[in-house]
Structures are given as structure tokens and as C-alpha cells.
């Protein structure tokens, strides 16, 4: 299953970044596919990007609401919100585990062999909700200039995915832009390098602490169509599901945790008692019992 997940991550990353002519054209993809929503965080200013980033596009809609209303255009971001809402209510944060290019990059970096002694304190996970509310919704909507236009606060001041996938490649493709990359870009590079270095020591630090898209999808984790369940009758509280989780979720304690990315590691690699199942619309797809014969006999006897 882990191999299948890796393949889905690779295919999604290639589909959402499928414009490989950019080194020759020295420009980004500008075709009609850019009206399609990327399920994961994938900067649409990346030269190879073939889809739009939901967080970038939503900020663009928010920052121009006042401007558009003055001209009688009722663009309220419903198209983008509807797209990610449909994806979220169907899959929740399973998208993060299976279809986010930036999450995939962090997973690859985490494979660098080193002592994994830096965790991610659980308290830091609340930062992403603040970033979603402030930098994606409120600040772009409310802090506007005389024309009624705001700024994409998350993209402009924070997003490490944008720096990695768009900022640096653009500077490489267009040398004349390098003079325009000032202090702000340097700060963004520091943020990006910080998260990438953190990814060597800790699993998915950006997803766990700062991703506003993950925060949005996480709101659906309790009420999504495709969902993981805990059968409390079968759970022996052996805690085997704790160390395998890349997001630090204690599945047997909070099966609806907003940080569960549905990677299925707890189900496939940890639980030996078939206590964790995946269901679609309440109908279980499978429950794996990987107990050894001695495990079964031990459980039977006691």
C-alpha cells in the first residue's frame, strides 16, 4: 500500500506540474488547464504548473473582492471554495497524504538517514489555523489599498512551496529578475530552508504546523466520505499505531484527528488486530488482520 501511495504521489506531482517545455520557452504554462484546481499545495507560478493552487487562487479572490464589487462583479471566491470543499468533504486530509507535491517533497527529505530526534510539538499544530484565517482570508480581504485591492499575505510573506517551486525557478529562468529579489525574498528563502532542514529531522513539519490548505482539509476529517475507523472492541491499546504515524497522531486516542492524512500506515503496518478500517460512506472497504498465530492464541487466552 505504501508503494501505491508513493506512485499516486509521483503521478499527481507530474500531472499538476506537467509542463516540461518551460526550460525552452523560458516561461510558465498559460493554457486552459489552469482553470483546474490542484488538490494539494502547488504554486501556480511554478513554470511547470498546469493547474491552479487553491490557496493562491483563494487569496487572489479575497484580495480583489472589494475592488470587484465596486465594478459590480460578484466574485466572492465561491468557485475555488467549492472546489476545495468538494475535495475536502470527500477525502479530508487524505489529499495531503496522497496528492500534495510539497508533502511528498518533505517525505523524501525525511528519508535522509539521520537521528530523528526533533519532533514537532503538538501545540504548534494550531498555528496553521491562525495562518488560514489571518493570511488567507482576513488580511487579503480587509487590508486594502485606495483601489480596494489587498495582498496575498500567505503567498507573499510565507509560502515555502511558492519559493521552492516558483521563486527560485523563475530567478533561474529569468536572470533579469534577480535584481528585484530583495530582503523579502531572502526572508522567504530562510523560511523555506528552515522547513526543508526541519524535514530532515522531523516528519512533515510544514504540513503539521503551517499549511493552511491542510488546516482547511483537516476541518473535514470527522465528516469526510472516505474515512478511517477504529473498532474499539478489537483495539488492545497496544499503542503500535503511535510511532508509525508521520503526523504524530495517536490514532487509537483520536481516530478523527484533524491531522490524520490517511496514509494508512497505522492500518497496514502497525495494527495487528484489525482494529483500524477504511470506509467509504460508512461501508468498510477492508480490515487487515496481520496477527501471527501466536498473537491470536495470546489474545484468545487472555
Amino acid at each position, binding site marked *: 500500500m505504501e508503494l501505491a501511495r508513493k506512485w499516486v504521489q509521483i503521478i499527481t506531482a507530474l500531472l499538476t506540474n506537467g509542463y516540461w517545455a518551460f526550460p525552452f520557452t523560458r516561461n*510558465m504554462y*498559460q493554457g*486552459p488547464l*489552469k*482553470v483546474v484546481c490542484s488538490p494539494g499545495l502547488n*504554486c*501556480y*507560478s511554478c513554470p511547470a504548473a498546469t493547474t*491552479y493552487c487553491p490557496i*493562491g*487562487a483563494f487569496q*487572489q*479572490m479575497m484580495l480583489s473582492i472589494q475592488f470587484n464589487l465596486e465594478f459590480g*462583479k*460578484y*466574485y*466572492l*471566491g*465561491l*468557485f*475555488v*471554495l*467549492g*472546489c476545495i*470543499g*468538494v475535495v*475536502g*468533504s*470527500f477525502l479530508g486530509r487524505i489529499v495531503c497524504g496522497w496528492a500534495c507535491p510539497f508533502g511528498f517533497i518533505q517525505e523524501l527529505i525525511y528519508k535522509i538517514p539521520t537521528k530523528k530526534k526533533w519532533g514537532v510539538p503538538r501545540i504548534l499544530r494550531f498555528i496553521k489555523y491562525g495562518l488560514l484565517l489571518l493570511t488567507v482570508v482576513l488580511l487579503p480581504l480587509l487590508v486594502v489599498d485606495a483601489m480596494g485591492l489587498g*495582498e*496575498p499575505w500567505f*503567498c*507573499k*510573506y510565507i*509560502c515555502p512551496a*511558492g*519559493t521552492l517551486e*516558483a*521563486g527560485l525557478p*523563475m*530567478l533561474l529562468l529569468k536572470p533579469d*529578475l534577480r535584481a*528585484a*529579489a530583495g530582503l*523579502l*525574498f531572502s*526572508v*522567504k528563502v530562510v523560511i523555506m530552508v528552515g522547513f526543508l532542514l526541519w524535514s530532515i529531522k522531523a516528519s512533515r513539519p510544514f504540513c503539521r504546523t503551517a499549511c493552511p490548505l491542510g488546516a482547511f482539509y483537516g476541518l*473535514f476529517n470527522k*465528516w*469526510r*466520505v472516505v*474515512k478511517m475507523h477504529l473498532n474499539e472492541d478489537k483495539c488492545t491499546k497496544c499503542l503500535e499505531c503511535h510511532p508509525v504515524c508521520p503526523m504524530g497522531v495517536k490514532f487509537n486516542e483520536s481516530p478523527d484527528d484533524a491531522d490524520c492524512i490517511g496514509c494508512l500506515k497505522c492500518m497496514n503496518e502497525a495494527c495487528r488486530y484489525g482494529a483500524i478500517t477504511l470506509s467509504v*460512506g*460508512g*461501508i*468498510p472497504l477492508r480490515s487487515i488482520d496481520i496477527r501471527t498465530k501466536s498473537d491470536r492464541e495470546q489474545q484468545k487466552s487472555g
Partner: protein
Amino acid sequence: MAKRLATRRINPVPFILLTVFLLVFLAGVITGEPVSVLQKAKKVCLSCIGIG
């Protein structure tokens, strides 16, 4: 199998959410937002990625 499915409670909330967001999406399409999204997505917004 049928008995197993019958005893399994299906939570309606995800399907209600799915329908609501589908309607929100359609409302966005009707108001012409895809054109605006496409226009913005086609351009490199340098200030949006911290350059300039």
C-alpha cells in the same frame, strides 16, 4: 453481507457537505469566477512570490 451493510450506519453529514460545496462551486461557475481564476493563474505574479 446484506445484513452487515444494513447494520452499518451511514453518516449523512459528509454527503450533505458534499452537496453544499457542489452548490457553492456551481454558484461560482454561474457568476463567472472561472474566467477570473484562469486570468490570474496564467500570469506570473512576482510580488505574490516575494520578488519585487
